């Protein structure tokens, strides 16, 4: 065994210190948000800079946020989009990816046609006109679900993973008299559960985080997904819906903590599931990387 030299150890320590710094820099903003959301609003507004812990303890901001009908309807709409959008994503992506993993004459041209769209797009305006004016999906959930039905990147990941399934399995199923749909359902998909998990996660996170299409196409507040509500509160600084009936003095105080509490309420689901699902996300990148 080779002995570790001094410079070796010095490097290790520096490296560890750098990594610790990275952890702190990455996590501090989240820590700050949690502490600020629990803080007493009047003390929070007078405070500048870093927070070591909560300033006082006050859950009023959370009460306000949870009582806000917009947050509730935002959650509802986002869940709707998440469930139906992801289901449509999986259906189309799985069928397409399986098809593309099989041999047929138009496979190559179709594949080229798909790859081409990764490098050249029609752009925002024609897409907007298509969805809003020609399909007439303005102010409809369809505008948020269907145009995002397939992500080319995910399609390629899934196809790559399907291609790894031994041809012999599929051939023997064919001999048993299974059709292509049967093979997809009974052989390919059950063998591809990990990649399906990755797909659900990728598409799901995509739906959860998406806001721009909703801003373009949705006008009815009742249909706003959560991120659009968040944009109002966090970016446009509009917390009025949660301050019904406040006298002016109170408003200024509670406004800051409401912002933080809103971030928490909207981000907690991700923060909770993230540590458990993280390895699936990573797996997706790996599968994609193999082919690229």
């Amino acid at each position, binding site marked *: 065994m*080779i002995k570790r*030299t001094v*410079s*070796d150890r010095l*490097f290790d320590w520096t*490296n560890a210190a*750098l*990594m610790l710094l*990275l*952890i702190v820099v*990455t*996590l501090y903003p*989240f820590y700050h*948000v949690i502490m600020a959301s629990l803080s007493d609003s009047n003390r929070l507004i007078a*405070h*500048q*800079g*870093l927070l070591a812990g909560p300033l006082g303890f006050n859950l009023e901001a959370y009460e306000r946020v949870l009582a806000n009908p917009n947050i509730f309807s935002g959650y509802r709409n986002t869940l709707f989009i998440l469930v139906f959008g992801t289901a449509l994503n999986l259906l*189309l*992506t799985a*069928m*397409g990816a399986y*098809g*593309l993993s*099989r041999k*047929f004459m138009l496979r190559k041209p*179709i594949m080229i*046609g798909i790859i081409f*769209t990764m490098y*050249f*797009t*029609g*752009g*925002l*305006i*024609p*897409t907007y*006109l*298509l969805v809003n004016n020609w399909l007439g999906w303005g102010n409809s959930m369809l505008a948020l679900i*269907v*145009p995002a*039905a*397939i992500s080319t990147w995910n399609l390629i990941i899934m196809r790559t993973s399907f291609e790894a399934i031994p041809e012999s399995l599929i051939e023997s199923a064919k001999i048993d008299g299974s059709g*292509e*749909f049967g093979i997809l359902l009974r052989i390919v998909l059950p063998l591809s559960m990990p990649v399906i998990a990755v797909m659900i996660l990728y598409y799901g996170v995509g739906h959860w*985080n998406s*806001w721009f299409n909703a801003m*373009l196409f949705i006008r009815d507040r009742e249909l706003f997904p959560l*991120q659009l509500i*968040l944009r109002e*509160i*966090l*970016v446009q600084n509009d917390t009025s819906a949660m301050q019904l009936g406040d006298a002016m003095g109170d408003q200024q105080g509670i406004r800051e903590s409401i*912002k933080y509490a809103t971030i928490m309420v909207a*981000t907690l689901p*991700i923060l909770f599931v*993230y540590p458990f699902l*993280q390895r699936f996300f990573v797996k997706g*990148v790996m599968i994609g990387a193999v082919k*690229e």
Partner: protein
Amino acid sequence: MQKLMQDLSRNKAIYLMVLPMVLYYVIFKYFPMYGSIIAFKDFSVSKGILGSPWTGLENFQAFFDSIYFWRVIRNTLLISVYQLVFGFPAPIILAILLNEIRKKTFKSIVQTVSYLPHFISLVVICGLILDFTSRDGIVSTIIEWLGGERSTLLGSADNFRSIFVTSGIWQELGWSSIIFLAALSGINPELYEAARVDGAGRFRQMWSITLPGLVPIIMILLILRIGGMMDIGFEKIILLYNPNTYETADVISSFVYRKGIAEGQDYSFTSAVGLFQAVINFVLLIGANWFSRRVSGNRLW
């Protein structure tokens, strides 16, 4: 043709399966490409694509003559360059450093933590950025500690690009390193062993073994980056900018969004701008790919 018909009937099920996908691409990807021809027309919604009169290159001319032309080009390129210079090496360095960590648990903690920001929605991230860079925010406080003066950082055009690029690195650093880590896991450990026997130090090993192992993937990603030079996503821009920062913040895509949808419905003009951007991107991508194939043998296709 006959062969195609034969294939169609033999692989009916397959064609049926890919049909929805093909329709999706035709409708949502290729139709907008066709729709881009309104860039050469004076388009009005009531007359439709075909019914609107042709205007030739007038819309492009208007863009080139516009006072905003150089500004959006400059901003787009500058942000791209900053991202390339600072944002591109960062995850490579992180991956190399992570690769040197011996304690498996520590390594996986660092990884888990550093991937996290990638999953937080852009709206929340931008909300945080706006808050932290406000007059009373954390960043201002730190600047004050360092002897600077408090200000609303995103209220002035001077800081926009640095904040935009830095926060982008913060959010994507960990996640972007995965692909490099994947490449590193493919390097034969015996190479390191041999190097150590030869008396190569840690830096020497990183330089002669780790980095060369990453070159192919670095090249591929570089090609993609250069192909996307003109393509700064507008979502984060429009969440962070305001009229005071347009001077340094407005990029081609945000300009298209603002002129086409937010402020006016000048569809033809903005389609021309968008098309201009798409074509330049495509040309850059082909160029980068050709260059990389010539120089390093790595290529996208």
